């Protein structure tokens, strides 16, 4: 893959070390050399190995589990079944809703999906456990399964009233609109497919549990483990130094974690359990399959009069997952009349989960395809029609945007892409056998805000240490927190050590919804400012300080040295100053919680998402925005699509580190190419069983599929969104990619594909 980036509007003229600088990932060398030790790579004395046994039917009851042969197999320590596993309590959900007072068993008797954990084998070695697990024979009483949304038994589902959004009279306005389009858009089940599979090591010492597990949310997962086992929150320690990709799937403690922790408790030994790749397709939920109908009523100038949107997503038989399908529909374009409603349909699947931009992603596929269809209907350029219907304020909340650089994104992207040279007719651009198409689509993601906590220490050698229980799954937390502390204290980033991924550190909420950078730069900035104040205070007032005689009001700390503002006094390093005043460290805790927050508020903030601030809180509506311009080439005979060029302009506010932000955007764009062209969980309709449950058959893009990608930052600092002015980065760029590609495919071929992915048989 060749990737080129342009620096543009990165809101900083600082060096690489400062906030806004292009510092390379500080964790890069450790990862490249293999020195980075991931959670399940810990070597522990007496480690035992657990392997899961899963249901092979999608619906029914376990009649019996024959485990004798497995128990007798070499090295086997225990076979866990619903009958033999210790009983747990139900934990609260991620809003912290008090759970029903009933036991929780991570091994199922009642089967609601194929691949459900029914038993586990623990043995001295992994190989012994695998072999013994194959000897466990489970018999079932099978009942008919609801395979997916298209199953005749699935029905219309359950209305989710909280998702209803309405203003004006959308139906009437649609009925009287001179131009009407109405179409249905479907997205399949998709999977996060992180390189590092899910897994953990659990170790009990008395009633204290330590869990080494890749985690997007240490405090949330620690709470769940604590509630399951009925031990105090403080007794659970989560350790998660690096995460090999999560994309939403590693935010919650899951059933396999409970199994491993039970096994460790029952055996009195640490236990490791790592999912096989196939198990990662059923051990937790991918993105729910969705169906949407979008109807747009407009006038002949393409001005939208009405949008009526109906959405459906699948959920599991006994779990509830709502993929908010009207989230982009309701804010992208100005419309006087609007109606959006959503149902969820129960199918025999694991409960779906969060996957990069849950809600916004499929939502954008609907509305951004539909407006493209409207543009052809009224004969207006697809970019022009978007500008005509530009929402000057949040149409739903009726509030001003905090910042919305979408017009700028359209302009910058179009200019760089050369959009003006596009010929409007479908099938009007070609190169030999290849039809060429150009498409555009917009994307958005709300700014999710929460609170965070960090400790900053200035140490005797002049280095600075930052600790936080937040995590780095490759997005760059280690790096931007080093930059924040370096800039705030006045040292080089090389002199900052950032420690993350241990729940004993000061706390952080979930790393998801693109909130972490804004939250944690704020907290580190605050703690570092407090540490700096202490340092300067000591230098000014401590009688042993070389600056004491100066009687200055303030001092300058830069490049690790302390000087007087006018440069007329001593010039000493931080370590010299600390030595002269007889201190081995300065330490400050900073958090961004309101000052009067109770201990209970704090606990709730870090262990649930109930305290997150709504993006429309106060006077503003806060979102990131983007515009994707895509060129595709479609082989006319074979229907194979190749994305041959991408230019995306994005507004994530101020970028704390443009290099890392660009990487995340490109990652989102690449994932969007996969979503548009490749990704789809394929079910065996007779057995409700996923067929392509491995990375050879579940296709994600390879380097050879990815063309030049150019990303342009058009953001400006947005201080309504975060302390330092950034908005969200990680989720944004995938939003709108699939419709941009589908729109380009239509322009190339004249065929509108409304069912993802766009595979060759849909085009030949």
């Amino acid at each position, binding site marked *: *893959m*060749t990737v080129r980036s342009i620096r543009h509007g990165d809101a900083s003229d600082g060096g690489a070390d400062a906030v806004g600088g292009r510092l390379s990932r500080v964790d890069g060398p450790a990862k490249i050399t293999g020195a980075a030790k991931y959670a399940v790579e810990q070597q522990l004395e007496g480690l035992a190995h657990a392997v899961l046994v899963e249901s*092979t039917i999608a619906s029914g009851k376990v009649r019996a589990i024959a485990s004798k042969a497995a128990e007798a*197999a*070499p*090295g086997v320590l225990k076979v866990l079944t619903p009958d033999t596993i210790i009983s747990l309590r139900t934990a609260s959900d991620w809003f912290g809703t008090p759970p029903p007072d009933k036991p929780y068993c991570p091994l199922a008797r009642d089967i609601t999906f194929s691949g459900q954990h029914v038993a586990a084998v623990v043995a001295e*070695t992994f*190989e*012994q456990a695998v*072999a013994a697990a*194959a000897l466990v024979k489970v018999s079932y009483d099978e009942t008919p399964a609801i395979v997916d949304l298209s199953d005749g038994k699935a029905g219309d589902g359950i209305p989710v009233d909280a998702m209803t959004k309405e203003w004006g009279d959308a139906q009437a306005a649609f009925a009287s609109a001179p131009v009407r389009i109405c179409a249905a858009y479907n997205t399949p089940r998709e999977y996060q497919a992180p390189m590092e599979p899910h897994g953990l090591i659990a170790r009990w010492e008395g009633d204290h549990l330590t869990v080494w597990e890749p985690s997007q949310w240490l405090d949330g997962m620690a709470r769940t483990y604590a509630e399951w086992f009925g031990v105090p929150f403080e007794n659970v320690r989560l350790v998660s130094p690096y995460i090999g990709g999560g994309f939403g799937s590693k935010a919650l403690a899951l059933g396999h974690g409970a199994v491993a922790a039970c096994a460790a408790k029952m055996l009195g030994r640490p236990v490791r359990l790592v999912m096989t790749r196939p198990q990662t397709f059923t051990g937790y939920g991918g993105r729910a399959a969705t169906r949407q109908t979008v109807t747009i009523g407009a006038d002949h100038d393409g001005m939208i009069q009405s949008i009526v949107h109906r959405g459906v997503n699948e959920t599991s038989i006994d779990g509830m997952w709502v993929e908010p399908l009207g989230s982009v529909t309701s804010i992208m374009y100005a419309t006087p009349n609007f109606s959006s409603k959503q149902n969820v349909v129960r199918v025999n699947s694991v409960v779906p989960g969060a996957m990069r931009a849950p809600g916004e992603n499929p939502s954008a596929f609907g509305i951004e395809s539909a407006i493209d269809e409207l543009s052809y209907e009224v004969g207006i350029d697809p970019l022009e029609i978007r500008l005509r219907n530009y929402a000057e304020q949040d149409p739903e909340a009726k509030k001003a945007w905090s910042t919305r650089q979408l017009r700028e994104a359209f302009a910058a992207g179009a200019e760089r892409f050369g959009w003006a040279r596009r010929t409007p007719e479908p099938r009007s651009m070609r190169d*030999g*056998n*290849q039809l060429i198409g150009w498409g555009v689509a917009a994307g958005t993601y709300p700014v999710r805000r929460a609170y965070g906590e960090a400790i900053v220490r200035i140490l005797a050698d002049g280095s600075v240490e930052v600790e936080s229980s937040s995590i780095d799954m490759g997005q760059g937390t280690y790096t931007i927190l080093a930059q924040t502390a370096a800039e705030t204290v006045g040292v080089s980033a090389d002199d900052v050590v950032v420690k993350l991924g241990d729940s004993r550190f000061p706390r952080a909420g979930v790393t998801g919804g693109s909130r972490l950078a804004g939250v944690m730069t704020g907290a580190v900035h605050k703690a570092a400012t407090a540490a700096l104040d202490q340092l300067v205070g000591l230098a000014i007032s401590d009688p042993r300080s070389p600056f004491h005689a100066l009687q200055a009001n303030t001092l300058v700390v830069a490049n690790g040295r302390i000087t007087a503002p006018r440069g007329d006094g001593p010039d000493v390093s931080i370590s010299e100053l600390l030595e002269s005043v007889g201190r081995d460290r300065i330490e400050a805790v900073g958090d961004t919680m309101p000052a009067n927050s109770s201990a209970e508020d704090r606990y709730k903030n870090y262990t649930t998402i109930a305290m997150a601030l709504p993006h429309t809180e106060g006077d503003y509506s806060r979102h990131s925005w983007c515009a994707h311009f895509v060129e595709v*080439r479609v*082989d006319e*005979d*074979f229907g*194979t699509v*190749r994305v*041959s060029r991408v230019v995306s302009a994005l507004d994530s506010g101020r970028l704390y580190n443009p290099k890392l932000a660009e990487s995340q955007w490109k990652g989102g764009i690449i994932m969007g190419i996969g979503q548009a*062209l*490749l990704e789809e969980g*394929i*079910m*065996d*309709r*007779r*057995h409700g*069983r996923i*067929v*392509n449950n*491995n990375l*050879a*058959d579940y*296709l994600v*893009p*390879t*380097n*050879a*599929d990815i*063309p*030049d990608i150019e990303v342009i930052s058009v953001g400006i600092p947005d201080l309504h969104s975060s302390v330092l002015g950034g908005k969200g980065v990680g989720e944004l760029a995938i939003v709108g990619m699939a419709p941009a590609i589908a729109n380009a495919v239509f322009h190339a071929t004249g065929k509108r594909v409304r069912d993802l992915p766009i*595979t*060759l*048989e849909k085009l*030949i």
Partner: protein
Amino acid sequence: MRDFDYVRPATISEALVAAAEPGSAYLAGGTNLLDLMKGGVTSPERIVDITRLPELNRIETLDDGGLRIGALVRNADLAHDPAFAKAYPAVAEALLSGASAQLRNAATAGGNLLQRTRCSYFYDTASACNRREPGSGCSALGGENRLHAILGWSDACIATHPSDFCVPLVALDAVVEIEGKQGRRHVTLEEFHRLPGDTPQRETVLEPGELIVAIRLPAEAASFAAHARYLKMRERTSYAFAVVSAAAALTVRDGKIRAARLALGGVAAKPWRARAAEAVLLGADADEAAFVRAADAALADASPPGDNAFKIELARRIVVRTLMSALAGTPALMPALPASPFSSLPGVRHDA
């Protein structure tokens, strides 16, 4: 733990003795065998590691002008051998369109011929599969079969053979050199793989314990070098098996086709030599009309066992395009995206 014996013979005859035990399997690059063992799809009782057999990793030119490829020659070494790629460009292109660089570095020529099907049910030990467990049934029939066979399938099994390498090889009359207790024998690649019939578990004509020692290409295989192409339709540009592929080799003089070879991949349980199409081409004008007739002939007997009817039309189009590009001439350089319809795109890197 599933215990198995591991033996590492030093000579071919030791290997044959070691593999004479029932339940033995030869281990070459291991890229297929070890995956199947880890998944519980096969559980050999004895692994006979042939990777140290010195005489099997040579590429030799024979006195009659033919070529002999030792069974242990790595896919990457063969594809990147300059003399080989020049003489048999379609074979090199097919090799480079397969798997990934890492796998090609490990995979051997003999192993490639014997790789098992990628039918998902074959890999899923919870599903019925006649090929894995004779008599248990075929889950793909009536199940998920979008990528399954359109030629030569039976009600017992509708799987395809996934190799790219084998497709141009069968077109070029390759011969498999086999060593067994009875001595050495030669079987054409066209006859080497079996169609499923009632015994899909019997995938080739190899008898238990027999060893592939080499693959031979006859002298005339190199005579097509100027007009030989491989085209592979797949869902992503690298690291994916063919939905359908084709190899074509032509000799053209005065606008007429003097010799024609055509084979299809991803359509049957064996690499599919399209002899009826070759008959149509022989002596015909070298033009698209002839290629369309040839494609019709190649697919005349095709039928879909399920949801894969699109593959028949796709295969026709691929035949025509492959013949067109063979006619246009073998490119001087290996395309950056081997065997891809987008191989001529500018600005695409080789390192896929």
